[in-house]
């Protein structure tokens, strides 16, 4: 009922409006450059508010998101040229983060004029003045941020470019599954086996935690096994048992890779049983992630049920087709489309709770001193939250689709995740959930990373 939300700031008076540009700059190059512009009396618009930080590597994307949430019309981020960083590589790390944030903003239809990046050295007072003048001119062109983006029209929530597909008949592995779990528990190889049991509603399965070999008959397997059980590996009520045996589909196994890579679990703590999966059902059809899944196993799976069963990779474009569909819209339409999605966000954070890779004991969205994400379930607060969630999963999300499945408001989080996965793959050649020994892509950099989006 977003129409009832009264907290949305009112539309600015366009007659008296002056763009507010927030600039986050590094101390050593850009700030000194801006200072030079001042001492040399170079004229440039007074609309810019400069926030000085030690290094562009310290310019957390949250600062940018928060600035927009607090009413900035535009944000300029500036640091030392590549090679000039006072701390050697801060700007290389920053460049990767900004690349992802920039792509995300573009995907959401946020006008490019509003989010700009530059390298300005201590000697480039003139360049600083030019950049600010140009960015302010751009903001004058696009005008104030409207409290609601508006104009979504009757756009559908789902593209029909890939019609829903039926779910293939699941393989019958239940007997072997129970036998394996029983063996693992009797051999004391694991203290708890996490699989699926019958749910209380017809046609539903739910996580089951088996601690005794006598209970393995509770385990079942079919196309309703949607939960990504890897999320339980970091939960206290599961860890209390000791070593965990975990039933994984190939998508779930990728999340285990992520947890190992980020040192959230120990390899010895978990034994993985792969189940050959040819697709699960979400909303009465084959889950979109399954269209493109090749069902391949990451190397770390310990045993695989019916290993000899050949898996037919399900082909299709899956979410890529829908991403292309979103990208075909004009930026204004895209913005309106996403706004309609985010307006429905209840801020329940179920998307966060279910995600195997959202394991922080205190989420930034819950912090109040300082507050990073406003609690208001209104246009700006919801946009900020959804940006933060998507950004934090960039290069980490394994595409299990759980966040989208559980969102009580049917928000297309899967498209945000898949878009960022595309960016990370195309720009950094990295696919999440593959090799636990690789560094996550936003913790590293290459000298030759692209920077066309930086002035």
């Amino acid at each position, binding site marked *: 009922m977003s129409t009832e939300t009264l907290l949305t700031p009112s539309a600015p008076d366009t007659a008296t409006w002056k763009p507010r540009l927030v600039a986050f700059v590094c101390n050593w190059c850009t700030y000194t450059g801006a200072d030079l512009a001042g001492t040399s009396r170079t004229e440039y618009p007074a609309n810019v508010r400069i926030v000085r930080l030690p290094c562009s590597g310290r310019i957390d994307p949250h600062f940018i998101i928060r600035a927009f949430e607090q009413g900035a019309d535009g944000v300029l981020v500036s640091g030392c040229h590549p090679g000039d960083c006072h701390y050697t590589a801060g700007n290389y790390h920053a460049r990767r983060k900004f690349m992802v944030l920039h792509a995300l903003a573009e995907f959401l239809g946020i006008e490019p004029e509003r989010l700009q990046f530059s390298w300005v050295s201590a000697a480039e007072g003139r360049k600083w003045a030019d950049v600010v003048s140009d960015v302010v001119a751009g903001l004058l062109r696009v005008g104030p941020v409207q409290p609601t983006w508006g104009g979504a029209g009757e756009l559908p929530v789902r593209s029909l470019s890939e019609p829903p597909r039926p779910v293939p008949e699941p393989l019958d592995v239940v007997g072997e599954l129970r036998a394996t779990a029983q063996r693992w528990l009797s051999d004391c190889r694991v203290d708890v086996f996490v699989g699926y049991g019958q749910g209380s509603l017809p046609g539903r399965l739910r*996580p089951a935690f088996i601690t005794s070999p006598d209970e393995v008959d509770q385990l079942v397997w079919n196309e309703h096994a949607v939960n990504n059980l890897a999320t339980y590996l970091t939960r206290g009520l599961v860890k209390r048992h000791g070593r965990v045996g975990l039933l994984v589909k190939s998508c779930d196994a990728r999340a285990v890779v992520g947890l190992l890579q980020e040192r959230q679990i120990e390899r010895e703590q978990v034994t993985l049983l792969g189940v050959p999966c040819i697709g699960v059902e979400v909303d009465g059809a084959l889950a979109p992630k399954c269209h493109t899944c090749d069902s391949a196993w990451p190397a770390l799976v310990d045993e695989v049920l019916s290993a000899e069963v050949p898996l037919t990779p399900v082909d299709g474009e899956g979410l890529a087709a829908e991403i292309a569909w979103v990208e075909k819209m004009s930026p204004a339409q895209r913005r309106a489309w996403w706004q309609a999605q985010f307006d429905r966000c209840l*801020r*329940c954070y179920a998307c966060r709770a279910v995600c195997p890779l959202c394991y922080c004991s205190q989420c930034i969205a819950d912090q109040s001193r300082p507050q990073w994400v406003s609690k208001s379930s209104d246009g700006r607060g919801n946009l900020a939250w959804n940006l933060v969630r998507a950004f934090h999963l960039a290069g980490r999300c394994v595409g299990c689709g759980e966040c989208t499945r559980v969102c009580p408001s049917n928000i297309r989080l899967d498209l945000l995740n898949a878009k960022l996965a595309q960016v990370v793959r195309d720009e950094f050649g990295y696919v999440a959930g593959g090799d636990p020994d690789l560094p996550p892509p936003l913790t590293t950099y290459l000298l030759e990373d692209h920077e066309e989006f930086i002035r």
Partner: protein
Amino acid sequence: MSPTTYLADSAQAVLTAILAAGQRVVAPVEQAGLLAFAHVEQAEQAQLIGQTRASAKELAFPRTQRLFGYRFGNPGVELLPGEEPPAPTVLFGVRPCDAAGLAILDGVFGAEPADAPYLARRARITVVGLSCDQPQAHCACTAVGLSPTATDGSDLLLTPLAEGVLVEVLTARGAALVDLLGEALRPGAADKAEVTARAEAAMAPRALPAGLADGLAAAFGEAAWADAAARCLGCGTCAFVCPTCHCFDVVDESNLRGGQRLRVWDACQFGLFTLHASGHNPRADQAARYRQRALHKFSYYPRAHGRPMCVGCGRCVNACPAGMDIFEVAATAAAGQG
């Protein structure tokens, strides 16, 4: 009051008459593949089959509500008013469970000290209930003493019958709405017992065991809560979709110029809910948090008010990403005591 029941052609026809009388209406509409309560201008926009994903509580208890604002001046601080409640609204097509949920919230927020922001919104809402003739697999109203045609919390209740719809006038506010509807309603009576029986027969059998409130209270210290709650993710979806859950947090959002104090939904399933400033958390794990949910609904509240704090809508069971079923957990926990 003149006749307390009327007949009309259909629920749609009643809605059309309400809109024609110039009333602002919020009703279930299909949005993004799910049913949600939203403002409607034409009767055809309303979707009168099925259950909304979220309950109707949001109209009276919005997920974000400004209690007051403030602006830093020189000197002093200027206080700004809280939210202006929305215009008087007819909440149409509310299922009996949801209407009963509003009645429970009325009791909670109406008790001294009365909650002015809630009551200001609530006073402007007329509830037009709509009986269920097609219960869903997760429906459980009969387990908590309600029925698919129960009248609790409705000002008017519409019950679809073979020959049209029965309109029961239940409150003065309902009667005032009827007065605006003219020809659309004809004085008349009909028996809804058959519809009730048919709907109840279509429901999955769910029941709460006798002595549940005491059984649960006795089970408070049981270690079994850890097993019962192991699959719970603490996501809070259950509380957010529930028509009777009413916990909130009060937060300030401010900057250099001023700010606002807000009430936002909260849920006992979040670790942050009971976290003390000292860092101590009396509900340290999900077992304690889930136990709170079960006991508040089926033990603490019933002991104080004589009925469960659950209207059996089944939304929490249906929407839970981990397949938790509060009826099952409560009954098992209480039985473990027996």
